Structures are given as C-alpha cells and as structure tokens.
C-alpha cells in the first residue's frame, strides 16, 4: 500500500483537495438532511387513517325549495345506499377524515371551564359509522339507533354519548386504558359518556398535533346538506361512484348531488404539498449527487491525464495494473474522507438548525454515518472508470513521451 506517499502527494495539492472535499461535504449535508425530511414526511403520509381507504368514497346532497325535507331524504337515501348491492355500509357525517375540514371540541374531565381542555375532532354521524369507516371497536359497544338525536347545526350542540379513539381515551384518562369506557368527560359544561373505544381514527387534519384524537357522536344535523360516506366491496368503488351519483341525482328533483370523491383522491390532495416537496428534494439530491460525481470524475480524469507519464513510469518501475488502479481509488478515498468528515459536522449542524427552526424532530444518529459511507461509495464508483483507464496506460509512455 502507498498510503503515506499518496497523503504526502495530496498535501502538495491542497487547493484541489479542499475544493472537491467541500463539494462532497456540501452534497452530503443536503443529501442527508433531505433524505431525513423525505423520510419524516413519508412516515406522516404512511399513518393509517383507520378507514378502508381504497374502498370508500363520499358525496353530498343539497336540497332546495320549501318542499324539501332533509331528515326524510336522508333516511331514504341511507336506506337506498345500504341496500345497493356492492355497498357494505353507508353513514352520514359532517366531516371526512384527511380532507382538511371538520369540527373539533375541547374536552375536560371535570366540569370546570378554567381547566385546560383536551382537543378532539368530532364526527357527527350515526350507528353505521363504525362499520362504514371499518373501525375496530376494542372496548365498549356501538351506538344504537335510539341513541340518535337530530338538530340544526346552528343550535347549541347537544350529545350524551361518544365513541372515542384509544389515543383520545389515553389522553383523557391516562391511567385507565380501556377501562375509560363508561367514564364521562365534559364538553360545553355537559357530561358525555364514553360508550366505546376504537383502535384508531384520524382527525380530518393530517398536520394537526391531535390528529389521533377523534370521536364519533350520534348526532345528525337537519340542514339541507347531507354528506354520505360509503364503503363498498373491494373493486366495486369506481362502478358504484358512478351509479350511486346517477341514482341519487335522479330520484329526487328537489336536490343536487355534489362533491363526489374517493378517499384516495382526498388523501392525494391533502398530501400533495408533502409529496411534491419529497419529489423536489429527491430531484435536488439526484442532481447534486450527479454533479458531485461528475466533479470527481472530472478531477480524476484531469489528474490522470496530467500524470500519464508518471503512471507509465510507475508501470516501468514495476507497478501492476491493479496497483495503479488502487492508487487512484485510494487517492479518491482520502479526498472523500476529508469531504465526509467536514460533511458530518455540517450535516449535524444543519439538522440541529432545521429542527430548532421548524420544530422538526431531530435526526436519528445513524443518518450521518450512513451518509458518509454512501458518499464514499459514490466517490469510489465515480472514480472506478478513470482509474481503470489509468491502469491501461502503457509502460512505454515512460520512454516515448517527453
């Protein structure tokens, strides 16, 4: 091995080493932090809403005119929907998970408005919601039809029962776990009993800090607009979306059907910013890595062309092709080593700055060493071609060229 001479020769070309290693350091900093951000974003995007998303869609019915009776229409619609072949279940709701809009309430375990409240998303719905949303009831029981109350959305809301998510139950009653069933909390100074706990159901706001705290409430609004959430058998969704929209629009002249959308579309729209940010970051990473590899290749080719006679002389003095190849691989390894060492410091500093500026979680420790190894590997791959060509230089160069 020629570690000593390579290092001493490099130390005579400090400027070139510094420039390329700074480029490597910069690439590593951006790459590692961007990968971390992408990973964090995709972790957020991968959280389940709790619903059977591929087989669920929704639409709204808005009535008009004096003749229109919202409660009757809704009852008829739901009966029709639930009896449509291919539909598993349907439920009225005021809000759609992941959609970005909905209602929330502040909950307290004691009837004292001065105490801090626990926020929770509220889905005003009926006893079919657990089945329609494909939720897993892990304690307590579902609502029954007799639990339902009806009122205008403009009145002061009044409900006595709720099915809460496990996350919400644990937030309200940290000690109790599933035993929170049967307990009551207060909202708007009125007691509400927890009748059931579901494993999970996300609030409508994906970026909310209380996204896992949600509850179902057996209350339905008598307003002119009703939204129905519909779950179908696998593979039936697209067909039923078309058919149901047509049927509902045709069977009642006093209303219009709007807002037909699948939950998958809703998810795509809500996370569009996140996914396009991930795409942009990915493009940035690929571009930077490409430019840096080109820089490494360029520097290697330049260095090799400049030293053709030196390489020929080394061959004349007895270097094997492998020894020439190894020389340039090692040279790149040391330059990359300087680069990733500076890069490690920059990466960590940058990630600390990011997490304190944007309230992001701090980067896991293993990102930096993996980034270092990756950039060294990229450098070695980049320099492999030029080094192999250097190894092909003929020893006769030593005597033939001046």
């Amino acid at each position, binding site marked *: 091995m020629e570690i000593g*001479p390579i290092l001493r020769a490099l130390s005579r070309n400090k400027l070139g080493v510094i420039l390329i290693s700074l480029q490597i350091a910069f690439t590593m900093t951006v790459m590692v932090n961007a990968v971390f951000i992408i990973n964090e974003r995709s972790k957020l995007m991968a959280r389940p809403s709790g619903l059977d998303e591929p087989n669920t869609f929704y639409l709204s019915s808005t009535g008009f005119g004096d003749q229109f009776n919202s409660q009757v229409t809704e009852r008829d619609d739901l009966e029709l929907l639930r009896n449509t072949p291919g539909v598993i279940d349907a439920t009225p709701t005021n809000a759609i998970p992941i959609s970005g809009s909905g209602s929330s309430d502040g909950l307290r375990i004691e009837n004292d408005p001065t105490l801090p409240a626990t926020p929770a998303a509220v889905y005003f719905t009926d006893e079919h919601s657990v089945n329609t949303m494909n939720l897993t009831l892990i304690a307590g029981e579902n609502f029954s039809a007799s639990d339902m109350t009806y009122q205008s959305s403009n009145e002061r809301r009044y409900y006595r029962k709720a099915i809460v998510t496990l996350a919400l139950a644990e937030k309200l009653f940290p000690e109790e776990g599933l035993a929170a069933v049967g307990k009551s909390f207060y909202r708007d100074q009125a007691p509400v009993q927890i009748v059931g706990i579901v494993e999970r159901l996300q609030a409508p706001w994906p970026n909310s800090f209380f996204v896992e705290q949600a509850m179902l409430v057996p209350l339905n609004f008598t307003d002119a607009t009703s939204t129905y959430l519909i779950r179908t058998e696998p593979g039936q969704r697209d067909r039923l979306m078309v058919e149901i929209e047509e049927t509902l629009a045709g069977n009642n002249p006093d209303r219009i059907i709007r807002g037909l959308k699948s939950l998958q579309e809703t998810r795509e729209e809500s996370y569009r910013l996140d996914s396009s940010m991930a795409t942009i970051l990915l493009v940035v990473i690929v571009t930077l890595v490409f430019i840096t590899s080109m820089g490494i290749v360029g520097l290697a080719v330049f260095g090799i062309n400049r030293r053709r006679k030196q390489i020929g002389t080394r061959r*004349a003095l007895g*270097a*094997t*092709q492998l020894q020439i190849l190894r020389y340039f691989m090692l040279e790149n390894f040391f330059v990359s080593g300087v680069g990733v060492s500076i890069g490690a410091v920059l990466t960590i500093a940058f990630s600390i700055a990011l997490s304190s500026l944007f309230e992001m979680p701090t980067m896991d420790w293993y990102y930096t060493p993996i980034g270092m190894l990756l950039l060294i590997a990229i450098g070695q791959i980049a320099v492999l071609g030029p080094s192999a060509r250097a190894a092909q230089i003929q*020893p006769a160069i030593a005597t033939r060229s001046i």
Partner: protein
Amino acid sequence: MLEMKNVRKVFRTDMVETCALDEFSLTVDQGEFVTITGPSGCGKTTFLNIAGLLETHTSGQYLLDGVDVSQLRDYARAKLRNQKIGFIFQSFNLMPDLNLFDNIDVPLRYRGMKSAERKERVDKALDSVGLFARKKHVPAQLSGGQQQRVAIARALVGEPLFLLADEPTGNLDSNTAKGVMALLEEINDSGTTIIMVTHDQSLAEQSKRNIHILDGRISNNTEQTQQKAAAAA
C-alpha cells in the same frame, strides 16, 4: 543474461506499418557496459523498451535471465521489471509531488518490501549518489544532474540484474554529463550490467562494447579493447 534472437518489432497504425526492429539478435552478458548508437528513428528506444519489457516484440525470441518472456502476461512482466530491471530516462521521470526518499522508495513498495528494509535501502541509495542530506526535498528543488542521480539511485535501489538507460545525459550539460557517466561506470565496475542508448559518439567509444543500429538492424557490434577505450578516454 539477455539474449535476443531474430527479434522483430512492427508498429501498426491505421495507415502504415513501421518495422522498428528487424532480425535483431544480441546477447549481453553479466557485467557488460553496452552502448547503443544510431541515427534518430533507427530503433534504439524500441530495443530498450523490448529489453526492459515495456513493450512486447512482434516475433522472435527474447530470453531474460534464461526465461522466455514472449508469452508472459502483463502482471508477470511488471513483476520482472520490478525485480530485474532498473530504468534511467532521458528526462529523469521523477514524481514531482514526492520527495527524494519517496521517489526512490517507489519500486520497493511495488515489491511489497517491509518498511524497515525499504528505509535502509533507500538511505543507502541516497547516500551512494551523494544526496542523503536532501532526502526531504522535492525534485523541483534539484538541478538536472542531481535529479538524474536520484533517478539512478531509484534504478539501483532494487538491486536489478541490469540497468537500461535511454540517453541519460541527453538533458544535461557536458560537465554534469561527465559526472553522471562516472557514476554509471562506477556502478558497472561494481558488477551491474548497463545498456545505454546515447547520441554522444565519444561516450560510445569509451564503452567496452558498442552496438550501432541502422534501420532497425545491428550494423556494427564492436568489442572494444580496454586499451582502445583507455586511449579514447
């Protein structure tokens, strides 16, 4: 020790075929000092490159130290160069980024020698060319004659079977050249075989044996008597 029989070297490019060596037969024995002369383009460097395993010959037989090298692969040729041959070039061919010690160390590292032995040998070689005190200097800090001395030390440090020199004094003024020649003669006196290409007729006349090449063939192969050589000096 070096035995060529009917060696032929043809360079093929897209358009032309150049026959650089033809029916070239030559034997060089242990301890000889052979000079090679001839007009430019006659094939001197080609001969040296083939003798030094820098280039392969097209046909004929070449025995190096009794071994037929015609069929050897690149790796084996590199190992033979490293162990049996020392090269001295017209333009010295030192590594500009390495100090003198590291320059002379290069062939020993390729041999995979242990660091302690390398150090001992390099120091001795530096000392033998009178440049021990400057071992931390880089070539650019040395005169041409000194650089060629370093190159000679590098060629000798591996204790090769023979030295091949292509116009070693071609880039030096006549006084410096004399010094380098004296050093080479000293090396030859202590037993190392030397084959040297030169344009300098007087140097050729001084040597024990002169080979004159014309158009890739040996035109004259003279064993000069010691007296004649001495008289010429």
